């Protein structure tokens, strides 16, 4: 799978040797959480713990990202990514994007891509309508349950107005980044809980 040319480059070796056990644990923890959240969205397509679209496991997607770096097949450009974690998250995004474009996941948007629907059929159209309706319901429920959370409502509205990143949301709302981050995390948790309860009630979105 990897030949001699893919042996660990010296700069990577130095970085690996520099990582303490604690830093290594912290890094894998963050990358594992990131891979899971980036892949799951609210769809809950896959039922097994840690299983990502296209049969990947959280563990394997993180391992692959690390190995891409360690084998030298993906170079860490420090001017583009200030720290290793950010760089590896980008590698995970890339792997998830590749995975999401597989046949099994062609309906899941990858990264910033719009939702893809290939080779539409009457059946796929019906499923698409059902899925979009479910998104409406989910978002409406998030807003309803956030009625006491002014920050969350501001964030949702900013996104609806076109703010697509944390920075853009912070600019649109005039709130500090930390407030936006915490608000986003609250909304995300709430969305996950609602999606899960709907799924348990037999209303799985996909």
């Amino acid at each position, binding site marked *: 799978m990897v030949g001699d040319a893919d042996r660990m480059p010296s700069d990577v070796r130095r970085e690996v040797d520099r990582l303490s056990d604690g830093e290594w644990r912290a890094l894998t923890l963050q990358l594992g959480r*990131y891979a899971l959240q980036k892949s799951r969205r609210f769809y809950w397509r896959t039922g097994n713990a840690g299983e990502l679209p296209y049969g990947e496991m959280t563990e394997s997607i993180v391992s692959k990202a690390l190995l891409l770096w360690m084998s030298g097949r993906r170079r860490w450009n420090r001017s583009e990514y200030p720290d290793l974690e950010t760089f590896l998250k980008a590698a995970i995004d890339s792997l998830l994007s590749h995975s999401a474009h597989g046949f099994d996941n062609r309906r899941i948007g990858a990264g910033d891509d719009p939702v893809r629907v290939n080779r539409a059929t009457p059946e796929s159209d019906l499923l698409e309508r059902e899925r979009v309706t479910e*998104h409406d319901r989910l978002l409406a429920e998030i807003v309803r349950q956030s009625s006491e959370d002014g920050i969350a409502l501001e964030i949702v509205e900013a996104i609806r107005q076109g703010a697509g990143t944390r920075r853009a949301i912070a600019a649109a709302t005039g709130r500090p980044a930390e407030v936006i981050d915490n608000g986003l995390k609250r909304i995300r948790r709430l969305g996950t809980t609602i999606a899960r309860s709907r799924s348990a009630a037999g209303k799985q979105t996909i």
Partner: protein
Amino acid sequence: MTTNKLDSQEVLRVINDAGADAPHTADESREALADAGIDADELARAIRDDVRLYLRAREHDRAPWEAIRSLAFALTAVSVAVFVVWFSITYRAEIAARHEATRASLIGPLLPGLSSDDASRRSVALAVAQEVDPAFAAATAERLRQWEAVSLAQARANRNSVYQPRILAGVLKLEFSRDPDDRKVAIWSDLLPVLVEARRNRDDFVDVAIEYQRVLPLLRVRNPDVFLDSYWGELWILNILLESKIVPVVEAARQQAPEPAVVERIYQMHAPSLPDRDRKAFEEAVTVYTNTVKALR
């Protein structure tokens, strides 16, 4: 709330992705993983093992000439195995016919059974041969076992063309070679990398793990005749199979798995003479193995 259905989908996507991008504390990340049924410590360990095994395997990657040598060795070994079975049966039959007519008359009829494709026929023929000539039966049984190993490997090679050639190369080296370097190559370059790579796809892994039931008896984890630095590679293989959650594989692995104290003793005996890096790698393998065996209880 919304009348534009596509907007809802996009809003949810941004919430999810921007939420994932937001910095999380260790506790938050741990909680997010736990919420999805993932143990953060287990995840960290599994990732670390994946990476370590992969890198370890790469460090022992073969030079091109070694690959050629291995291939030549594999072909030679297959030829030798076929020849030995044929030679053993015919030669002993001839000797028996010449010197012990009575025995020959008894063994002769067993030969079709011994060379049969039907395992039950071979077993019956071997049982009878045991009564007639124990030495001949023992030698034949050994040859047949080797022949079966080769046949099985070849049969399965047609099913998984990605991994089988490497599995076969590893098994043949462990089975036939007494060269310590061949054993190291078999573990670090053939068998362990295949198992690690196959773990990335559950279907492949199940297929490969079942195949590795044939590898298990060839491992020398319990009582290595000579200690080699492939020892903890063998320990990793055993460990992965113990953790495979594939019932027959786990059972077979358990039968081969020594008590952690045995492995610990081997570690204590040999670790001091190892370079730092190898000693650490060995130590980690022992720790993981000990935890795995305890968990299985």
